Every structure is written in structure tokens, then in C-alpha cells.
């Protein structure tokens, strides 16, 4: 099973790198979908089946499509970004900060006793049925709060995006 981790990690990091470096916005979103698939594969590898399925449904099915729609609504030319610069002027400062963050995070988790923790295997498996019972049992209040939050976000997104039409009348 070890090689699966390395293959999926390579795909995930490749997708993440391409998503923030490619010039064409649509290609960026396609790389982002590759990255989301890699993360979902990691969840399946970690025996979190439900979260993996939710990752595919919400991120690839909803968020990626939403980003594609936003790109198509905000771009005046189809195809590549054109000759205009896509990277900001201070790109080196951002890269240095990100590299420093990566170094510090790696430094913080290596050499600790966390690094030696071994996977428990398949001893006690949490299935989808357990999660479903959790949603209507112990976690029913956060579940309802999440429903209210999503409703508020939906109404808010519609109000923000419809502002122009309301002013026109």
C-alpha cells in the first residue's frame, strides 16, 4: 500500500502546482480537479470513504463548476490570458514567504514523536451508516447550523451577484 501514497501524493502536488502556475484559467481549473481527485484518493486510502465521496461531490461537482462559471462570466476574451502579465510584480516575495512556510511546517512535524505514528489498520471501521446516525444524533445541532449557514450563503451570493440588475430598475 505504500507506493499508493507516493503515487497519489505526486499527482496531488502536481495538480496543485499546475493549478496556481498555468496561464490559461480553464487549464487551471482542470488541474484543480486533478488535485481534488488526488485529495479524494488520499481520503479513500485513509479509510474515510464518506469524506472522499463528499470531496468528489462538493469540490469537483460544485466548486470546480462554480469556478468555471465565474471564469466564463468575468473574462472578456476566450482562450489564453494573452500577453498581459499574470504574475504580480512582487512574485519573489510571495514565493519566499511560501517556501519559508513550507520549511517551517516540515520542520515542525519532523523530529517530533508524531512522525513515528503508525496507521492502526482496519481495526474499528467507521462506515457511512455511523456517520448518518451521527448527523441525526450527537451532531444534529451543528448539522442544522450548517443548513442555516448554507442558506444564508446562498441568499447572500444571489444578492451580491444581482446588485447590478436591482440598480438598473
Amino acid at each position, binding site marked *: 500500500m505504500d507506493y499508493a501514497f507516493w503515487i497519489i501524493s505526486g499527482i496531488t502536488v502536481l495538480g496543485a502546482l499546475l493549478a496556481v502556475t498555468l496561464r490559461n484559467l480553464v487549464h487551471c481549473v482542470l488541474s484543480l480537479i486533478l488535485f481534488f481527485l488526488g485529495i479524494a484518493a488520499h481520503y479513500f486510502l485513509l479509510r474515510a470513504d464518506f469524506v472522499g465521496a463528499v470531496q468528489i461531490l462538493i469540490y469537483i461537482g460544485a466548486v470546480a463548476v462554480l*469556478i468555471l462559471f465565474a471564469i466564463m462570466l468575468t473574462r472578456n476574451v476566450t482562450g489564453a490570458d494573452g500577453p498581459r502579465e499574470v504574475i504580480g510584480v512582487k512574485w519573489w516575495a510571495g514565493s519566499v514567504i511560501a517556501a519559508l*512556510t513550507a520549511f517551517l511546517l516540515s520542520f515542525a512535524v519532523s523530529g517530533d514523536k508524531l512522525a513515528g505514528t503508525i496507521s492502526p489498520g482496519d481495526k474499528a471501521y467507521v462506515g457511512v451508516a455511523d456517520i448518518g446516525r451521527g448527523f441525526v444524533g450527537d451532531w444534529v445541532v451543528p448539522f442544522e447550523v450548517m443548513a442555516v449557514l448554507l442558506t444564508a450563503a446562498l441568499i447572500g451570493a444571489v444578492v451580491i451577484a444581482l446588485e447590478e440588475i436591482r440598480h438598473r430598475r
Partner: protein
Amino acid sequence: MTIPLGHYLILAGVIFSIGLAGALTRKNAIIVLIAIELMFNAAILNLIAFWHYKQYAALTGQMFAVFAIGIAAAESAIGLALVIAIYRQSKTVDVDEIRSLKG
């Protein structure tokens, strides 16, 4: 699976840093939102990794990850609506050119 927990933490750190670099260097507001999604996913991967290695019999880790994914989806919907509203206002999604709130 004999992969130690530290490998997942380092992977999440690398993904988070890639997202941070994208959010700090790219000029397109939509790519900045994509980079923020990368950072969200790195954090949720950490949640699932810690659940798997430390609290495998409990439900809490997976529940927390599902709620975090829901909040991230709400955030991206609002963010993209804001980008569309800004584009209608100023005809650009370049974060260096959107400076009407700049002091």
C-alpha cells in the same frame, strides 16, 4: 499501510505552501480563490490524517471534516459572487487594479 503520520502532515504543509504562493503571487482574483481552496484542502487533509492515526474508532474527525468542507463550499460561493460583482463594477478581476478601497 506503514506510512507514518508525519508524511501526511508534510504533504499537507507542501500543499498549503503552494496555495499560499498562488494566493500571494497571482493577479487574477479567481486564481487567488483557487489557491485558497488549495489551503482549505490541506487543512482538511490534516484533519482526516489525525483522525486516522489518533482517533480511528471515533466519529469526530470525519464529522469535523464534513462540516469544514461545507463551510469551504459556502466561502467559495460567496467569494465567486463577490468577484462577479467586482467585475461588473470595475470590468477587471486583476487584484492589483482593484484599488477603489485602497487608502
